[in-house]
């Protein structure tokens, strides 16, 4: 019912846009028009803004009902529920940084996708993550979407989760007490659904890890149906560690342990790749465009391509 209402609202808004003489250039000076738009724009007119200077302050503020964090704001504007009464802007929390120390890379939660891509281009680090992020959204959106916001929301089309899980990322959370947990635990413990502030993402700087990521989207900046990420470590071409994740599946993400176990202590040959794919069985839900079988088949093709790409890098 709610979806129907929102859909009809968007259609109405589009119809109004088309009726305007200024071909799409919405001039909101007309009071009646403004009222109509405001009734469709779900964000509350009396929205309260907070600009805390410390994470502790921010955590206290989001404890109130209807108050949420604002990073880049792109997701809030996509969903814009009227239940939001207040927004806590993270802009003054000094969470926009990328540091490298003690064989670890820390990415502040307010860093944008573009910040990570630039860091990777400059330092040649985080290439798996940067590859995924550079294919997500478009240039102007990558300049706004924050890593922390994307992690907290985890939309089904997320390009961020699969590579971060494959990289065994950890996150630092400010809640009642600060803590560092693995991203996998964050998802599986249900913590993602609670109110908290993500302060940073921590990734091991491991030069021996090779990885790749592939996302299935019809056009470059469309939301992907699924994203597969593979990270492998090898000694003399024999795989010693494998991490394989896929997002966009039933349950949102899947840790492909069977395929990982199969690959351990093997050399990545064509025969091994052929067999590994048999152990890669993500389950999808059908949607209005694609059947579950189609997605499953495509994901196996993507997984094969990824392993083929990585064969030459090990």
């Amino acid at each position: 019912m709610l979806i129907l209402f929102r859909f009809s609202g968007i259609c109405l808004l589009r119809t109004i846009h088309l009726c305007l003489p200024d071909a799409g250039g919405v001039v909101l000076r007309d009071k009646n028009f403004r009222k109509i738009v405001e009734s469709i724009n779900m964000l509350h007119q009396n929205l309260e803004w907070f600009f805390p200077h410390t994470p502790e302050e921010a955590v206290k503020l989001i404890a109130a009902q209807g108050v949420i964090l604002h990073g880049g704001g792109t997701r809030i504007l996509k969903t814009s529920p009227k239940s939001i009464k207040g927004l806590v802007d993270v802009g003054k929390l000094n969470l926009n940084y990328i540091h490298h120390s003690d064989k670890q890379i820390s990415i502040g939660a307010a860093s944008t996708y573009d910040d990570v891509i630039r860091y990777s281009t400059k330092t040649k680090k985080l290439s798996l993550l940067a590859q995924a992020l550079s294919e997500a959204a478009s240039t102007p959106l990558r300049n706004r979407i924050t890593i922390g916001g994307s992690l907290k929301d985890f939309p089904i089309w997320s390009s961020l989760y699969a590579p971060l899980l494959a990289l065994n990322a950890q996150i630092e959370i400010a809640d009642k007490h600060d803590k560092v947990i693995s991203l996998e635990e964050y998802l599986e413990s249900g913590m993602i659904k609670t109110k908290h502030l993500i302060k940073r993402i921590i990734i091991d700087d491991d030069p021996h890890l090779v990885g790749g990521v592939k996302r299935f989207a019809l056009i470059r900046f469309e939301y992907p149906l699924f994203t597969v990420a593979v990270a492998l470590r090898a000694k003399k071409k024999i795989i010693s560690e494998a991490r394989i994740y896929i997002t966009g599946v039933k349950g949102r993400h899947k840790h492909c342990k069977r395929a990982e176990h199969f690959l351990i202590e093997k050399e990545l040959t064509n025969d091994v790749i052929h067999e590994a794919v048999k152990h890669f069985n993500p389950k999808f839900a059908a949607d209005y465009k694609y059947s579950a079988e189609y997605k499953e088949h495509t994901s196996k093709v993507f997984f094969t391509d990824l392993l083929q790409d990585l064969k030459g890098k090990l």
Partner: protein
Amino acid sequence: MKLEFKINNTSKALELLPNETLLNVLRNNDFTEVKCGCNEGECGSCTVLLDGKPVNSCQVLAMSVQEKEITTVKGIGTLYTPHLLQKTFVEAGADQCGFCSPGMVLASYSLLKENPKPTREEILVALDGNLCRCTGYVKIVDAVENTAKKLHSNNLVME
């Protein structure tokens, strides 16, 4: 309410509501050079520069950018004093209906400022958030390439 914003190197007090996007606030305060197309962050007509980086102003809540430098297309050149990039857009026939032009120009400006000699592929990536309704992409990419060549041959830097 009225709040101060830094727009095109000038401080301006703009009338706004706390739930309004930067696009609405700019247009309601006479910055109509910022165009509204899809209002969903897909088409790039509403592109402005925030601290020099292109963003979709329809996907930015105005309250969150009070301390940032906002640049609209009039901030880099006007009808009577156009920027080299704007002149080159016209020369290349890249302006066409003109609806996407403010966004295209700003996205290209940001690219050339950072990378004065972009490849065609780099131009395409930089403009991936800007849709041209006339589908005149070849001329637009030519215009960016031509501007880069002019900058290089005249030993100029993008300003």
